[in-house]
């Protein structure tokens, strides 16, 4: 274990001394242990996804990582791959760690909790504790709490180990076309519960307006395919209907009373929603499809991260630069009419939504304490870098929140304080030129802030465990819904088959000692 030989505090102490000598304002750390060990430079290899907001990769790869590396005398190597490639690479690297070989990277940023890899990664609990106790002069009050969302996504209550370290989550709001929504609302008498100006409030609203929107040639679009977005929105609906795959203790409850009836009710609702307000393309979607179809002007509604809004805004900015008239430019008007809801749509039980992506770093337990320490130090600083003032003081450019254009939300709830998040969103520098040109409000995406309250994790209300991960990655839930929506299975049969598969998966991981529950 890395703690037995040299602790991360030793690393910080050594690093801190050098930094002070260099007159760098830092979080109590300085030159790396590598420097102390005769100038031998450490190499830290990170694998992470190609961010949906490309400027984030520019910032991380070309600003944060090299500056951090220079400060700590560590050579940081960052490899970016497509999100679909991460699981296969992680599996191969885990096998190498298990065999005592060099995995190729020292840590990987996963986009869902990698619970199955727990035996090969370090316990990230100490790092979380240290962050909770840390502070910075540029941000009074510390980094805040490690949110419940993050805790339940990275902590295994069976083994007592944090198998991952979540630095961020990405909210998954409902995007809708305000112009189309208003037209649909105008066609519906007694459209109770629907706020024509503020978008859908309940799933029932979406069904009722969706019928009209489909007739208008702009169906609503919620995936029923084997991909990320379908997995997320269907779970959000399940939670809003008061049903879930597992309970708090990791017992499978999907087909048990009273959850069974709720699940069946939702299966019937999704079938109705598909038949009356959607179209067959949703069965073939990839993770990019709802973005494509929304941005092509076909869809009236989709659930996705704010990447939809940001892409529309980027197109509008280009139109502005080309000198198009803001009042008549399709691209600019499209951005103006693209809105997000402030809350997740409500089902019969509650209004519950999900994170879109859970950013979880996991450090391989290779026994190389110096590298493990350096990896933890980088994550420690990455969390602090959320705050633009801290980032500026440390020389890390605009910081994580601004670099991601508010796409990455903090899992330490004060890593960037709420007022600073809101200050950014209320005068959003990306949308400001469009707002100014059109007279629209600049705080277009301020509603995303509410996700701090409504975003739940995959596996809710229990922990995100290895069984939940396998169910997620093998698309058991989208397949269940899709077979019913297509009329291939009765809701009861689809539910029974899904529950059988899920139970089998849970039993396997229970035998591995990684998942709790008994049924």
């Amino acid at each position: 274990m890395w703690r037995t030989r040299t602790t991360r505090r030793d690393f910080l102490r050594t690093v801190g001394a050098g930094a002070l000598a260099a007159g760098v304002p830092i979080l109590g750390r300085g030159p790396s242990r590598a420097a102390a060990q005769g100038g031998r430079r450490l190499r830290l290899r990170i694998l992470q996804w190609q961010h949906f907001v490309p400027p984030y990769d520019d910032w991380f790869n070309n600003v944060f990582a090299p500056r951090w590396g220079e400060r700590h005398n560590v050579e940081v190597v960052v490899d970016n791959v497509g999100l679909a490639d991460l699981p296969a690479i992680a599996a191969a690297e885990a096998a190498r760690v298990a065999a005592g070989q060099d995995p190729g990277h020292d840590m990987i940023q996963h986009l869902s909790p990698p619970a199955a890899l727990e035996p090969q990664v370090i316990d990230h609990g100490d790092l979380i504790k240290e962050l909770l106790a840390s502070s910075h002069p540029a941000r009074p009050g510390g980094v805040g709490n490690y949110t419940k969302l993050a805790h339940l996504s990275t902590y295994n209550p069976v083994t007592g180990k944090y198998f991952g370290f979540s630095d961020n989550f990405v909210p998954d709001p409902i995007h809708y076309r305000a112009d189309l929504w208003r037209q649909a609302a105008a066609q519906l008498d007694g459209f109770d519960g629907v706020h024509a100006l503020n978008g859908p409030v309940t799933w029932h609203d979406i069904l009722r307006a969706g019928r009209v929107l489909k007739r208008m040639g702009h169906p609503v679009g919620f995936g029923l395919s084997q991909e990320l977005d379908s997995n997320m929105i269907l779970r959000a609906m399940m939670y809003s209907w008061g049903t879930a795959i597992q309970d708090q203790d990791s017992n499978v409850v999907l087909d048990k009373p009273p959850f069974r009836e709720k699940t069946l009710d939702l299966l019937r609702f999704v079938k109705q929603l598909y038949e009356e307000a959607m179209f067959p393309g949703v069965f073939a979607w990839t993770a990019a499809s709802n973005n494509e179809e929304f941005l092509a002007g076909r869809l009236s509604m989709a659930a996705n991260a704010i990447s939809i809004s940001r892409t529309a805004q980027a197109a509008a900015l280009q139109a502005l630069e080309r000198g198009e008239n803001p009042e008549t430019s399709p691209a600019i008007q499209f951005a103006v009419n693209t809105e997000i809801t402030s809350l997740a749509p409500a089902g019969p039980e509650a209004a519950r939504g999900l994170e879109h992506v859970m950013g979880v770093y996991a450090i391989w337990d290779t026994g190389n304490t110096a590298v493990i320490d350096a990896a933890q130090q980088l994550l420690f600083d990455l969390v602090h870098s959320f705050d633009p003032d801290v980032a500026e003081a440390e020389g890390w450019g605009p910081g994580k929140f601004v670099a991601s254009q508010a796409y990455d939300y903090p899992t330490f709830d004060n890593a960037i304080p709420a007022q600073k998040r809101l200050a950014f969103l209320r005068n959003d520098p990306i949308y400001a030129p469009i707002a100014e040109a059109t007279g629209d409000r600049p705080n277009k995406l301020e509603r995303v802030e509410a996700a701090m309250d409504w975003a739940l994790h995959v596996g809710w209300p229990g922990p995100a465990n290895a069984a939940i991960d396998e169910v997620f990655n093998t698309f058991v839930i989208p397949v269940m819904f899709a077979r019913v929506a297509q009329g291939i299975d009765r809701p009861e049969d689809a539910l029974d088959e899904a529950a059988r598969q899920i139970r089998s998966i849970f039993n396997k991981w229970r035998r591995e000692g990684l998942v709790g529950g008994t049924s």
Partner: protein
Amino acid sequence: MPNTAQRTVAAVAAPRTKRRLLDRDRFLGSLLLSPAVLYIALLVGFPFLFAIYLSLTDATVGRPVGAFIGLDNFREIIESRGFRAALRNTFVFTFVSQAVILALANSLALALQRDFRGKGLVLFLILLPWVAPVSLSTIGWLWIFHSRFSLIDWVLRQLGLLEGNLFWLGRPDLAMIAIIVVHVWRMFPFSTVILMAGHSALPKDVLESAQVDGAGFWRQLFQIRLPLLLPIMSVAVLFSTVFTFADMTVVYVLTRGGPFDTTHVLSSLAYFRGIFGGNLSIGAAISLFLFPVLLIAAVLILRLARRTEVT
């Protein structure tokens, strides 16, 4: 102490011994074969034995060394609806695509027996799908079958044959057709090249005699050319079958097994369960179902290869 002459004899003796060894057929044969044997042992034999080991354990991606659980994994996958569908799809995918490939490759190989202007360009174009990176070309097909922007749908709409979209990859039957189309497109150059070689090697005197005797095109094709081509055609088909049976690229890129698990083949299902799901042992058990079919195909290939040996 040896004198100079003795030393010279000893120095010369070593290369002579080596030369004598290299003159022995058995030694030389073994030596020449050893790289291939080593290659197969390391890159085929070991992974195969490891897959058998994994399938009998509860190994996961996080813990590749699992506990022995007998045939539990096989029992579990046989009970699974997804596995049964994948097994059926594997056979449908393989045999339908092979039948189409054979028909297309024969027609094309026959047409390319004649010389014409631009033949070189045609040959280049035919070989293009074979040499293009499969993932790249399949992404191109992904757009051709796109749920909204499908090129095929656009053409059909322009011809007035379609309103709206067909949603190729959103309907199980059309999705399987799309997979077969892409695979045929990708694989038929291979069969075409083999059959072209076969057609060129047909004895000219037999074909000329048939022509003199007044045999028409179809009679020549079915009663002379195809029977003579049968051994080489079988080799082409069997190679292609083995390749198709174990292939998952087109399914992975085009449908990822969707819509709702209806287009998985065994190899894609094994990959999703084993790697994406983290359930390594189940993935290994699924992939081992390929083995009996591939074994039979391999035996047939070897037998046919012997039959077609020039003696």
